[in-house]
């Protein structure tokens, strides 16, 4: 292997390693970005869950108002509002059934928003980690590939005598004299 080949191989190795490190660094920045998105997703989930809960509370407040109005009107009309089995009681039970359905839906929505946002956040964090792992793996493959190519391009397995070796720089003269050059 000639004197110039080894430094060139070292330069190739350093350059390839630097390229790999840059790719891993880029993947780490990308991971940070994914972590931020994950945090955002969590916050959005909590915010959405709160909104659904607020709507649920509004539903309860609304049904409370409705039942109160029904009771008041029944009392004003001379009907017993709190007697079980009376028409007012039946109307109020119907109101409560509707409200309970909608309240249940909003509770489920809140729960879904929170759990899904948590899943999304976990997924985003995992994506960041996977990206870094992939970048490391690709950097290793790239390094091996570059070095293998460089080795196969510059390697020599034959038995040739290098042109600048000492044996090529001397001329045998008649009478056993040797003219040394270089």
């Amino acid at each position, binding site marked *: 292997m000639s004197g110039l080949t080894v430094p060139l191989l070292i330069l190739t190795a350093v350059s390839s390693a630097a390229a790999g490190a840059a790719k891993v660094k880029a993947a780490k920045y990308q991971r940070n970005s994914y972590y931020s998105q994950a945090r955002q997703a969590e916050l959005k989930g909590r915010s959405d869950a709160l909104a659904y809960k607020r709507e649920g509370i509004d539903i309860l407040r609304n049904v409370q108002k409705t039942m109160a109005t029904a009771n008041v009107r*029944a009392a004003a009309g001379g009907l017993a509002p709190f007697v079980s089995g009376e028409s007012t009681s039946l109307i109020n039970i119907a109101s*409560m059934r509707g409200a309970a359905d909608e309240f249940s839906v909003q509770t489920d929505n809140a729960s879904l928003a929170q759990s899904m946002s948590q899943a*999304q956040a976990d*997924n985003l964090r*995992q994506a960041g980690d996977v990206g870094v792992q992939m970048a490391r793996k690709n950097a290793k493959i790239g390094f091996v*590939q570059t070095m293998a190519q460089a080795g196969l391009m510059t390697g020599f397995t034959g038995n040739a005598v290098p042109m600048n070796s000492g044996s090529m720089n001397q001329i045998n003269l008649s009478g056993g004299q040797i003219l040394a050059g270089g």
Partner: protein
Amino acid sequence: MAERPTYQRRGAQLRMPTFQDAVGQVAARGAAQTGQALDRMTSFFLQQTEQQAQIRGEEYGALHAPTREQLKDAMEGKDDIDLPGGNFTVADRAARKAALAITSDNLQHLAQARITEIVLDAYETQKDPTDLATEVDAVIAGYGDILDKNAPTLALNFRAKMGMYANREYESYAKSQIKTSTSSNKASVTQILLNERAGIASGGVIQ
């Protein structure tokens, strides 16, 4: 009777939040990059393997090409020559190509040597140029036949090259013969005239 209100539904529905699979996207992108890198590496190694196979094939073909003796025997016995290699693999093709190149060179050398022998013999024996051409053509046809079966293209090329060579030799010989013939004619005419002059001088009569 007083009107008693009932609860008015708001139409609340179950809402499923959207979910974006970022892991899948990142993993797919990374795997695709890995695949491309491995593809490049594979194609590089394949290229290297192909080059190695070609070199190995060329070396094999050069080492196992028919020798001049074998070619001579083939021409004399009208047998087929046994060429290494084939057409299926890179090494096979390279071996065949190298063997054909060497065979072609050897055939040219043999044919040229034989033609030179024939031409020299013609100079010595003052052979008729037409006979020389026939003999030279026979040599070219004989050696060309060896390549006909295994390498028709090379056979044509060989015949064309040797045809040009033979034509040069023939032309040279024919010119030499014309020159010799002219000198010989001049000498015989001069001799006739000198004889006539001697006859006149001695009192003879030209008839």
